[in-house]
């Protein structure tokens, strides 16, 4: 079944690319709408500069951003789950933080952190910690009250409850949130780099925009989405290995 699914979606993507190719050739203004074939060609030509020079800093932003988000998000979720006051205080703030237009806020991070990696990391954290916090919190809350009581009758300590009940109950939901977060992290890193950077895929794409090189604008974006897809697949794989008991499909 799974193979069939990816077969249909490949077909759709291929069809879409075909139409794009035809449309771009007819329109014939490659600085506005480059054809997929041109983008592929540019990607190939720029491969070493993109992969060796611009990918590593972007990847570092994504990585640090995600790690911080996971630490802050799960930490906050665990705290809110254990403490009613913390929940009442932080939950509304976390929700409200999502209504802040992050792109508009991003320049402030430059003021705070300068053109260092931290201004980019801050943008990434701000958009990825939300799905992680909320999914971890919901997961923790979803644990079965009856199971908790049973563990208590066995003489379980707080630590036993946490590791043997709360964590396993929270994992399925946590992974759903993490999947959303890794795809968002790529966007966060790219936006962060638009603000100003010396290297990075987002920075490169924006620089090419000023040079009217349409194909070179798209090439790093293709690479960015490849990073996003790879991260997504990595999380899916982790989820499958850790949650073997779940019936899928």
């Amino acid at each position, binding site marked *: 079944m799974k193979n069939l699914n990816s077969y249909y979606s490949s077909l759709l993507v291929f069809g879409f690319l075909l139409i794009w190719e035809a449309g771009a050739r007819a329109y014939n203004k490659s600085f506005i709408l480059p054809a997929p074939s041109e983008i592929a060609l540019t990607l190939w030509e720029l491969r070493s500069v993109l992969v060796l020079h611009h990918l590593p800093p972007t990847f570092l932003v994504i990585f640090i951003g995600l790690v911080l988000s996971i630490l802050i998000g799960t930490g906050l979720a665990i705290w809110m789950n254990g403490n009613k006051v913390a929940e009442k205080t932080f939950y509304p703030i976390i929700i409200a933080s999502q209504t802040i237009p992050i792109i508009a806020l991003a320049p402030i991070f430059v003021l705070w952190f300068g053109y260092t990696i931290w201004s980019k990391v801050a943008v990434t954290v701000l958009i990825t910690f939300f799905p992680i916090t909320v999914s971890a919190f919901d997961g923790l809350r979803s644990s*079965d009250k*009856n*199971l908790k*009581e*049973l*563990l*208590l*009758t*066995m*003489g*379980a300590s707080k630590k*036993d409850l946490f590791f*043997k*009940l709360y964590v*396993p109950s929270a*994992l399925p939901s946590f992974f759903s949130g993490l999947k959303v977060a890794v795809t968002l992290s790529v966007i966060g890193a790219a936006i962060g780099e638009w603000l100003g950077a010396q290297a990075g895929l987002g920075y490169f794409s924006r620089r090419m925009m000023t040079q009217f090189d349409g194909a070179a604008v798209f090439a790093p974006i293709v690479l960015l989405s490849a990073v996003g897809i790879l991260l997504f697949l990595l999380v899916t794989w982790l989820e499958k290995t850790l*949650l*073997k*008991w779940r*019936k899928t499909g």
Partner: protein
Amino acid sequence: MIEPVLEFKRVSFDYKSEPLKDRVPILEDINFSVNDGEFISIIGPSGCGKSTIFRLITGLEEPGAGKIYRKGQQAIDRLGRVGYMPQQDLLMPWRTVFENAMLPLEIKGIKQNEAEEHVLKLLMDFGLKGSEKAYPGDLSGGMRQRLSFLRTILSGSNILLLDEPFSSLDAITRLTMQEWLLDQWQKLSKTILFITHDVDEALFLSDRIFVLSQKPNSLIKEVKVPLGRPRRVRDLGNLDVITLKEALIDELRPRTAT
């Protein structure tokens, strides 16, 4: 005189979660005592508070009035002292059969090798050998119940509270498990409290039967089973036992207004 291992003195209880105005006392002025090594069955109509008695004994609930004694001492801190098998099997879906059985031993902090050996042997006895790597989601209702029962036994407590442990087993497996339970009870000299809806089961297994009547005034009536040990299933055909069984069934039937 021998001291009872467990005693309820004038215990009353109602669930605090209900709004005050329509709160009905579930248990009112309950008295009973259980001696060391006794096998007690509790029967009563559905909803009369049998499972609630177990929640009180385990320490999940506190009595509204009255006291609970263990070995003559008032038992305040009761959690973690008895083996409790809840009415639903409550297995952890993320743990395999083997890992589920290991749970009480992990909590007690028993050494890994020792615990594993113990569990493997019992899995064999309970007909769960061969499915130890399966997840609860892949087990039949009867298998889940046996696993939950096994987990309770592994708690190693001297008092076992079993809430309808064999309700989803077929007649033959149920008989095997009943015989196994009696065998273990005699070997390990445990004290067992056993909730059931099945009067035959109660008669076959227990020394005494506690009968709870319908709430709000649930009173406990005690009945001694007129059978020696060891017992066989055909002993249930004794005249004494049949008369007792009919009396019990009458007791359980909802009173019709006359």
